[in-house]
């Protein structure tokens, strides 16, 4: 029997038989979230205005996020053990836990909620407000991604987990927020710790002790998962988790290559904002359907390229962005409206990582070695070097470094990254203060003037070159 949410879920890629089968779960989810007919109607309108739903791949990706939302919200009701990890986190860990037991929900709830309640229902603000009322007050530059988790738990819309893993090697605040939540709800937590203490200029070298310490922390995490959740993550499952994660990222890499043409055939709000973090936050549906959806999208983009279709005019200045918004596609659309072709995103672009033969003795250390060589968790210097390389490799005209003001490790690069990248590449960098999880204070319209001015500069430089 048809229901008020059918149009939205169909728009988001649900097949009729799938919708029928999932109906009880969808209804239970919407009920728990307090979403009714008016909300799904508004969501349908929001999705149509903000996402390229003429593409089946996009609709499928939206659907995967919705399925992930259902899994998250109903996990405890459906008898699952619940394991949360943070963002950012070392890729593959959550996936390995999911691979190890069918009875476990393993995910990053805050990222799932941003992409669904934010990008589909446009209903994230009440969650953010609940986060502010429960320990993360506004005006203190506290991470709003954490506020989403705090708010969602306070409102009872996501289950209290059986265990959490904290990203203590990069971020101070995620770990401390979970400590606050552990005090409140009493669940066990394991901090995967590290220290980004490499000397400025040391990258790509690193002290081997960094691998030893971080590797030991990753190994310990799996021991703790077994202790608290009764789930054994063995070497094979860990490898599978890493493979799944890498496989999804490989597909994203292919997507990046296909879209790197003039005119830009697809919005970065879709590619970076919607698709990129699917494999990072959801471990079940991204695993089962994620790659296929991305492959569909690649084929559709190829068709757009053949037709010469562009989301911005041909010849628009090409830019790299730091991050897409997790919850508001309007940020990237505003850049496109300003005439910028956002052709690449830092966390998705291919990197100049040389292959190596790892002789690390444990899987944890092997994973830690990957992180050191990739560089995101190496140092700010490594991050600046990597982004400079990406700018050079993607041949962009400019770089919008949209740093998160309320993320200390990222905010610390506010000025230095601009300096290093401009020195290394000679292209202009716009250091733009944003909040990619909460657009109440840093709305796209409030940032428009700066982006438009930057676009003017890039157009002038391009014209002068020609």
């Amino acid at each position: 029997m048809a229901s008020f949410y059918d149009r939205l879920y169909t728009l988001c890629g649900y097949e009729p038989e799938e919708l029928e089968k999932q109906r009880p779960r969808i209804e239970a989810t919407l009920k728990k979230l307090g979403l009714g007919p008016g909300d799904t109607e508004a969501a349908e309108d929001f999705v149509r205005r903000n996402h390229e739903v003429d593409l089946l791949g996009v609709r499928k990706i939206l659907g995967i996020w919705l399925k992930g939302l259902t899994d998250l919200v109903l996990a405890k009701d459906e008898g699952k053990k619940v394991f949360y990890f943070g963002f950012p986190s070392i890729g593959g860990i959550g996936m390995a836990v999911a691979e190890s037991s069918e009875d476990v929900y393993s995910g990053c709830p805050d990222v799932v909620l941003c992409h669904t309640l934010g990008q589909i229902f446009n209903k994230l603000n009440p969650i953010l407000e609940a986060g502010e009322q429960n320990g993360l007050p506004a005006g203190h530059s506290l991470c709003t991604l954490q506020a989403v988790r705090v708010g969602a738990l306070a409102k009872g819309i996501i289950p209290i987990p059986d265990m959490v893993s904290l990203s203590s090697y990069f971020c101070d605040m995620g770990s401390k927020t979970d400590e606050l939540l552990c005090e409140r709800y009493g669940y066990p937590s394991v901090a995967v710790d590290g220290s980004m203490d490499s000397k400025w200029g040391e990258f790509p070298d690193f002290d081997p002790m960094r691998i030893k310490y971080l590797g030991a922390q990753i190994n310990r995490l799996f021991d703790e998962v077994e202790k608290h959740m009764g789930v054994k993550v063995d070497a094979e499952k860990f490898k599978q988790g890493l493979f799944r994660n890498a496989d999804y990222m490989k597909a994203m890499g292919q997507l990046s290559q296909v879209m790197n043409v003039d005119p830009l055939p697809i919005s970065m709000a879709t590619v970076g904002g919607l698709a990129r973090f699917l494999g990072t936050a959801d471990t079940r549906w991204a695993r089962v359907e994620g790659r296929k959806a991305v492959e569909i999208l690649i084929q559709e983009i190829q068709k757009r390229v053949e037709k010469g279709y562009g989301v911005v005019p041909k010849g628009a200045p090409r830019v790299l962005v730091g991050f897409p918004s997790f919850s508001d596609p309007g940020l990237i659309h505003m850049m496109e409206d300003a005439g910028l072709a956002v052709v690449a995103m830092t966390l998705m672009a291919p990197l100049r990582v040389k292959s190596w033969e790892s002789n690390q003795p444990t899987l944890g250390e092997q994973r830690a070695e990957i992180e050191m060589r990739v560089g995101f968790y190496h140092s700010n210097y490594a991050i600046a070097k990597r982004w400079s390389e990406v700018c050079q490799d993607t041949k962009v005209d400019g770089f919008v470094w949209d740093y998160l003001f309320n993320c200390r490790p990222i905010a610390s690069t506010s000025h230095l990254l601009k300096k290093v990248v401009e020195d290394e590449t000679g292209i202009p960098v716009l250091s733009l203060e944003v909040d990619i999880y909460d657009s109440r204070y840093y709305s796209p319209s409030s940032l428009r003037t700066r982006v438009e001015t930057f676009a003017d500069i890039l157009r002038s430089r391009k014209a002068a070159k020609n």
Partner: protein
Amino acid sequence: MNEMEKISSHLKGRLVDLWRAKDQGRKIVGYSAGGYMPEELVLACGAIPVGLIRSGDHAMVEMAGAYICRWIDTFARAQIGMALSGEDPYYKMVDLLVMPNTDNNIRALTDVLCIHTKMDIFPFGVPHQKGKYALEYYLHGLTKLKKRLEELTGVEITEPKLREAAELCNKERALLKEISLKRMSDPGVIRSKDFVMLNHASCLADKQFMVKTLESLSKELKKRSPASIQGPKILLTGSTLAQGDSKVLDLLDEVGANVVIEEFAEGMKPYWQNVTLNGNLMEALADCYFMKRVCPGWFRPGRERLDFLVKLAKDFKVDGVIWYHLMYRDSYKLESHYFPSILKKETGLSMLLLESDYDPSEVGQMRTRIETFIETLRR
């Protein structure tokens, strides 16, 4: 001249003394104020340790805006301002700046100084939790630091030299602890402002002088008959209590409250534990500075510190707790949300939360809040 005046006088001439020592070939080793840089290593190679603990000037915080966004801890931004403006002469004279990497705020400070100055900077890691591997990592950092200091000074840090330095630093810590603990039975024996001044001085003064003066002061305090105090007894805790950031202590003095114990992660030197002198001294340093030290708020979990605060509140029989942290030190902000309920449950005490960006305009509202809190405690 009493001992406090002697210390003040010594500090006034300290810069000149240090420049003279530098002229004579001594190396000056600066370190950030988080308490994770063992002065013993610096002393053992004949160099002079200098804690970069000065702060509190909002102009320096504003100056940092040219190099980093405002959403970084106030103390870290103030250090950027002081180092890059040349306002802090200590930054100008250090031959090596040791930066234990405690959290992202200090990492940000280190990076900015690396990019914008020609200072020789040595960062090393401080893990955020205690355990076998974390201790090993911290010890590894100390071992690298030892090597770097030997290169800098051309002096080998031998076991006897390190032992001698550890004995001296142990004496200093023991004396600071002894003086601090006197307040448990005799809360008026020394004002908090004076004790904080002693602690700050221990980061800057000549070590032999400091130990000798603390010994004399301890004897002097023993001779005094217990002083009666009127106002409520306060435990003052938080992220950073820098030299020069005296507004909270001043305001508490003005309203007649008595801070009887302080607990801070930065600015004040940890003095509760000493280095064990038998066995491997490098391991003993790591054990003292990392494992035995009550962890700061940025450790996860940080419950050890919160339990320690409860113990201090009970041991010193305080009437209330004031939690003073600097803006954007997120670890402290988050702990400040749930510690009051722990404190209330364990001791029945109330806590006042104060935050600062070193802005002079904060003083008015801070005064009102302190006055109200102290008035409440008096009832």
